[in-house]
């Protein structure tokens, strides 16, 4: 032990090195939204309009994000075009060097508004479709005429020369439409499509019995996406958000907690992922009170599940610990009742069979949608 005699005591050791800088930031500008999708990923308790950050605070947050090392910002919600100051924010994001992506449902966006958004310098637009045809989109979003409005917005986006991604959240009512979604993306001259299997957190968890597809449907969907991805290489990029209720390994949620990205809620809370508020007792810091860099480095919520030290022995000793990063903490909370438990999507979890049984039961349940209503 003599060699250690001169070493400082643990309490005097320098602080651990700060975590590597994040690459992406999701800015949830508002929770207001004209659509009523049953799979809404926002929390059950939405933030009110009068609690939203003002323009000045958002601009400061974007500046701080750029300095911190964030390269891409995703302006989302709710429906971000509900904010009248959106164009101002886009212009600022572009000015501070951020690659600026707008995530919109498109229904209330006029050609004039889109022109202003393009003029402000937006880099890319991601437009959601709830179905590959009008009947499905209008039913899932509970918004008559939504599909037609989205088609018009997509054409206008391309007429303005902006790059377009089609986003399709898939579940029991539309999982058979994946080939049609891909055809729609090609017809709209999109270069990218996201096939996102519904994730069951927040409001979506309430509707799991109405949304969950069968195991056979999920595996067929995965095969269709693989085939299309190969066939359309160089023409259309296909990204998938994978379904995990029928999986063997958990998804590497957010590519690791507090590792690459952060979310800012409409009222300024900074979250490691947008479902993180489903985990009780986490202490989220707010941009009204802290600088973004301090939050990224020091917020107790970010440090709670960062890296691998927090993992239960089963995960810490697993050879996939830095592939899956322990899976999803919100799912561990929802299914195991413990955010620090092994993600039940993992085949090593003692609750894996339980989770599979939940999915199989839900897949043959004929619940009606509990629509989300919030304007």
């Amino acid at each position, binding site marked *: 032990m003599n060699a250690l005699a001169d070493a400082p005591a643990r309490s005097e050791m320098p602080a651990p090195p700060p975590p590597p*800088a994040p*690459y992406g930031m999701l800015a949830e500008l508002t929770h207001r939204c004209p659509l009523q999708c049953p799979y809404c990923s926002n929390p059950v308790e939405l933030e009110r309009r009068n609690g939203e950050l003002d323009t000045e605070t958002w601009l400061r947050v974007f500046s701080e994000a750029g*300095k*911190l*090392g964030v*390269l*891409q910002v995703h302006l989302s919600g709710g429906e971000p075009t509900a904010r009248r100051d959106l164009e101002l924010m886009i212009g600022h994001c572009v000015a501070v*060097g951020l*690659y600026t*992506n707008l995530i919109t449902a498109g229904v209330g966006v006029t050609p004039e508004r889109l022109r202003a958004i393009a003029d402000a310098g937006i*880099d*890319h637009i*991601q437009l959601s479709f709830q179905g590959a045809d009008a009947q499905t989109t209008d039913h899932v979003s509970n918004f008559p005429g939504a599909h037609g409005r989205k088609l018009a917005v997509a054409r206008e986006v391309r007429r303005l*020369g*902006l*790059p377009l*991604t089609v986003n399709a959240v898939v579940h029991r009512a539309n999982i058979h439409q994946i080939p049609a979604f891909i055809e729609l993306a090609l017809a709209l001259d999109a*270069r*990218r499509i*996201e096939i996102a299997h519904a994730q069951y957190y927040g409001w979506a968890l309430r509707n799991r019995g109405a949304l969950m597809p069968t195991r056979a449907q999920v595996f067929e969907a995965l095969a269709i996406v693989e085939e299309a991805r190969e066939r359309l*290489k*160089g*023409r*259309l*990029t296909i*990204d998938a958000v994978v379904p995990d209720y029928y999986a063997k390994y958990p998804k590497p949620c957010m590519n690791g907690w507090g590792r690459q990205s952060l979310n800012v809620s409409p009222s300024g809370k900074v979250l490691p992922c947008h479902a993180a508020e489903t985990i009780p007792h986490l202490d989220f810091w707010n941009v009204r009170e802290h600088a973004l860099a301090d939050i990224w480095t020091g917020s107790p919520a970010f440090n709670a599940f960062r890296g691998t030290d927090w993992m239960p022995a089963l995960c810490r000793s697993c050879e996939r610990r830095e592939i899956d990063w322990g899976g999803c903490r919100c799912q561990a909370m929802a299914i195991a009742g413990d955010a620090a438990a092994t993600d039940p999507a993992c085949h090593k979890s003692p609750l894996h069979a339980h989770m599979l049984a939940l999915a199989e039961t839900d897949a043959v349940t004929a619940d009606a949608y509990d629509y989300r209503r919030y304007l």
Partner: protein
Amino acid sequence: MSAPLSAGGVPRLARGVRLRHDEARGQWVLLAPERVFQPDPVGVEILRKVDGVRPLSLIVDELASAFSVDRARVAADVGAFLAGLVEKGLIEFGGSGEAGP
């Protein structure tokens, strides 16, 4: 999809793709929708010449001369690098003489 690239073709960044210097990390990055690519130093030299005006043959000429490397080898390396980015949807090719976007 991997037809050989024409030497007279003009490569350009696909729409929605930007090359910028990342001050925080001290490196160049290629930004695309939901993607960040970190090309190696050779890739950066190639990408900085992709301006939608220079044809592939000129890019190869300039790099071979700047680094005093055998032109045939440079042509092979640049072709393979750009073909990979075409497949990822990050680079598009216009015809000979096309002035880019």
